[in-house]
């Protein structure tokens, strides 16, 4: 039996508004640290999400994970919650947590992990813009 690990990836996307600020700081402090990302009326992004699942292909199916199932999972757990939403105002996850790309990636990981087969590893890559992206866990 093969024990060769393979990584499979599913790409999804969502569009959302957000604002970066720390509620414990003055407007000026927030402006100094977060600059134009602190705009009180929000700004927004096309987020591009790549979910990586690593594991040994199942001997019966040849799959690490059924990609349709992975896509449905991302839609239910992530896209339906975040797409065309205001991350600060419309989501439970960012009521108090600053919706930086870093924190969004961690939240997405935590939302998906319980639904990923235990023998597989999960990694999330999130593009906030075509030029800025983060990965969690860091590898």
């Amino acid at each position, binding site marked *: 039996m093969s024990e060769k690990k393979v990584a499979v990836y599913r790409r999804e996307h969502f*569009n959302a508004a957000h604002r970066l600020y720390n509620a414990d700081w003055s407007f000026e402090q927030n402006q100094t640290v977060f600059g134009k990302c602190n705009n009180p*009326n*929000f*700004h*927004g*992004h096309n987020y591009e999400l790549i979910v990586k699942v690593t594991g040994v292909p199942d001997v019966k199916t040849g799959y690490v994970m059924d990609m349709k199932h992975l896509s449905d999972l991302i839609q239910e757990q992530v896209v339906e919650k975040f797409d065309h939403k*205001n991350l600060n105002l419309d989501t439970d996850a960012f009521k108090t947590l600053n919706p930086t790309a870093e924190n969004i990636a961690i939240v997405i990981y935590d939302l998906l992990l319980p639904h990923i087969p235990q023998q597989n590893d999960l990694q999330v890559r999130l593009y906030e*813009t075509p030029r800025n992206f983060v990965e969690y866990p860091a590898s």
Partner: protein
Amino acid sequence: MVYLTRIEHFNAAHRLYNPNWTDEQNEQVFGKCANQNWHGHNYELLVTIRGEADPDTGFFFDVKQLSQLIHTHVIDALDHKNLNLDVPFLKGKMCSTENLAIAIWDRLAPHLPAGVALHCVKLYETPRIYVEYFGN
């Protein structure tokens, strides 16, 4: 005749919403784009100008100058802004990609010198959705 394109980008929040309609009508026409707390995009803007290359320089307009024009008149007003609330030249307009492209054209056209014509404003709202405006 040569066509020259400069690509710029900005990130903004917006909402598609007609204030003369009920929430239900807006929801029906604009769906999730009517979300009252906004959503947002990475907009990619391609501005194409048209002219004859100067025999001495080989170009018809300094592309750095074109970039500065776009920044001064468009990007500075739109980047990291709420298109519905923060942008004076969009006040009272529906913030669709179509209208945004027309508004960008109107901002840029008066600042181009004689011999340089604005040819096209192409605006990507997402990597999969874009509009083009040719000035009429």
